[in-house]
């Protein structure tokens, strides 16, 4: 009896070993926000096709720092992790991500040239090493109230920042408590975007943070000028969605999430507002390339499975499926160029803007370091009347040792 039972059992085991499917290690994926159920739906075809089991864990955006600290400290992380671009350097510096330079060649789907230039390969490399693969993109565009601009005699949104400044001034003269534009006091990328539009950068050729270029000075002129004109609200608790819907701030620069918020909160405004690519400075209309990449955890025991999953996620079809499921924009060029992206007029603008967009410099700890110091300097000038030269000198001193290397 014993003999007759063990033979089929052994045969079954041998089949499993040979086919290799059922024994693939499961891949644990950390997905930011609350879209893990949709992610499960997205990867279902991958699971059946490859036999690799994908386990999705949702990580709230707020708790990513704590989660990273505890998982780095304990050495127990996921296999694949979604990383917001502003956190990429922190993750890489902590040694949490597997360097991918030598591995990408083996997985044709991950080839650098497949992805949008603003985020591909070297653009998001940390200290010269590729540690992640682009996943979803996000950018900033100009939101404007067509009805209010027309009432003030403007038939089109501003094409340049100078035009925006003069239009904002005129719009703020509509009455007490009315403004023309809105600068969020927590928006550290905005002054950098303004610098880019003037053809400069805040990182010099050696990779060190440098606030001395004239393009940055011009950005400071614009930032402080909008405040000096009385064109922007000065209260830090100004609500941008309500401000835009009520028309108090009829122009502002924000991301696709604001479009969803406006459509949800004020469907009656439909047709009265629109978006456009960013106004141009003296050089370009470059915007911020934001979004998330995917990285492989440094000590994963499912390296091949993880990279196969990343390859699946980088397929144009998967990227479009995710856009339809969750509304997040693709990073793969051919997906961005897909006709489905042109169906929605808003998405068309986002895609156009993504073609001219850059990621923030990969300095350690943008929010708490360079970005925070930048906001502190600019806001001290506009809110407390601090001396401009002194504030900028303090900024340079505080960020002197920040570098992308």
């Amino acid at each position, binding site marked *: 009896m014993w003999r007759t039972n063990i033979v089929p059992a052994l045969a079954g085991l041998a089949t499993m070993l040979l086919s290799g499917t059922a024994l693939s290690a499961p891949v644990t994926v950390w997905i930011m926000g609350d879209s893990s159920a949709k992610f499960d739906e997205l990867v279902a075809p991958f699971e059946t096709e490859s036999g690799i089991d994908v386990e999705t864990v949702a990580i709230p955006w707020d708790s990513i*720092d*704590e989660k*990273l*600290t505890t998982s*780095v*400290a304990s*050495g127990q992380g996921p296999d694949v992790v979604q990383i917001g671009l502003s956190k990429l350097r*922190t993750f890489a*510096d*902590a*040694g*949490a991500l597997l360097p991918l330079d030598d591995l990408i060649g083996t997985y044709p789907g991950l080839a650098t040239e497949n992805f949008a230039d603003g985020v591909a390969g070297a653009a998001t490399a940390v200290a010269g090493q590729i540690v992640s693969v682009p996943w979803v993109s996000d950018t900033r565009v100009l939101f404007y109230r067509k009805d209010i601009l027309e009432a003030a005699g403007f038939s089109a949104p501003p094409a340049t920042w100078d035009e925006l400044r003069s239009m904002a001034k005129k719009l703020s003269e509509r009455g007490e408590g009315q403004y023309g534009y809105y600068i969020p*006091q927590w928006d550290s990328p905005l002054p950098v975007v303004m610098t880019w539009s003037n053809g400069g950068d805040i990182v010099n050729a050696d990779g060190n943070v440098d606030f001395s270029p004239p393009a940055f000075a011009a950005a400071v002129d614009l930032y402080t000028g909008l405040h000096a004109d009385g064109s922007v609200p*000065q*209260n*830090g*608790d*100004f*609500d941008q969605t*309500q*401000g835009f819907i009520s028309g*108090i701030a009829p122009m502002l620069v924000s991301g696709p999430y604001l479009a969803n918020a406006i459509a949800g909160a004020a469907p009656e405004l439909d047709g009265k507002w629109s978006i456009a690519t960013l106004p141009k400075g003296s050089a370009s209309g470059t915007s911020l390339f934001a979004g998330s990449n995917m990285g492989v955890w440094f000590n994963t025991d499912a390296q091949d499975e993880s990279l196969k999953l990343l390859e699946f996620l980088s397929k144009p079809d998967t990227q479009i499926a995710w856009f339809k499921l969750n509304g997040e924009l693709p990073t793969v060029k051919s997906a961005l160029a897909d006709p489905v992206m042109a169906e929605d007029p808003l998405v068309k603008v986002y895609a156009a803007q993504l073609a001219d967009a850059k990621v923030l410099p990969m300095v350690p*700890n943008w*929010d*708490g*370091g360079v970005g925070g110091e930048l906001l*502190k300097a600019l*806001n*001290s000038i506009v*809110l*407390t009347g601090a001396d401009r030269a002194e504030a900028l000198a303090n900024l340079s001193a505080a960020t002197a040792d920040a570098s992308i290397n």
Partner: protein
Amino acid sequence: MNRRLAPYVFVGPAMLLLATFGVFPILVAALVSFTNMNLGGLARWSNIKFIGFQNYVKLFRDPDFWQALWNTVFFVGLGVPCVVLLSLAVALLLNRSQGPFFRALRAFYFVPAITGIVAISLVWSYLYNTQFGLLNYLLSLVGIAPLQWLSEPTLAKFSVGLVAVWRGTGLNIIILLAALQGIPRDYYEAASLDGASAWQRTRFVTVPLLSYALFFVSVTTLIGWLQFFDEPFVLTDGGPLGRTTSISLFIYKEGFRQSQFGYASAGSLVLFVIIAAVTLLQLRLRRRDLE
């Protein structure tokens, strides 16, 4: 034998807890404060280096730390007298009657102390909101221009302090009220017979007999305000421009947002020394008073 052991058996568990969760972490923080411990050090211990007093030198040169220190001094100077005096005044008033109305009021004053900080922050940020806030609406009724309660750098300090005072009085009122009710009626009767006025009875009977409770309340309140954290954390996150960042919030940001564990530990050691020094000073003054 048993008699000699008994005190240790009773004190033991508390000492063990104190050593594990009080003394040991302080020692670890002291050790970490001499290292360059950060996220990279957490991943691989070989990345951790002892750097002597560098963290402390950097700390005392950091304008953000000094700003946080002076902010904390401001909050202590504003908050402690306000909380103690206000608690005493309310407790004296509540003590005037034991009727159902006064008992209801007692509960009313205690509610802020037991309300979750998240709920408090939500309610107060709506009250303070520049565009939609109730406070600015009330001001507009009497024709005063809206104030930027949490955005104007100087006003924000007072706004945040006010919420903490409101929240801090509840528990102290109950403590003082309990002490007040422990004062025998005979003293007041005797004082009345001698012709003491209501004010004189309060000043020369109540306050001296309350001195121990008042001392307790002022020590705990002072320590609480030196560790001031919750209100600026939920209302302003230390802003605008760092004007409401207390030392605790500074330490939290350095340690948990920027993962500079060594640097943050140095900051927490400095705060520990300040609190220990101030509390010892209070105990000394109290002892001299009693003598």
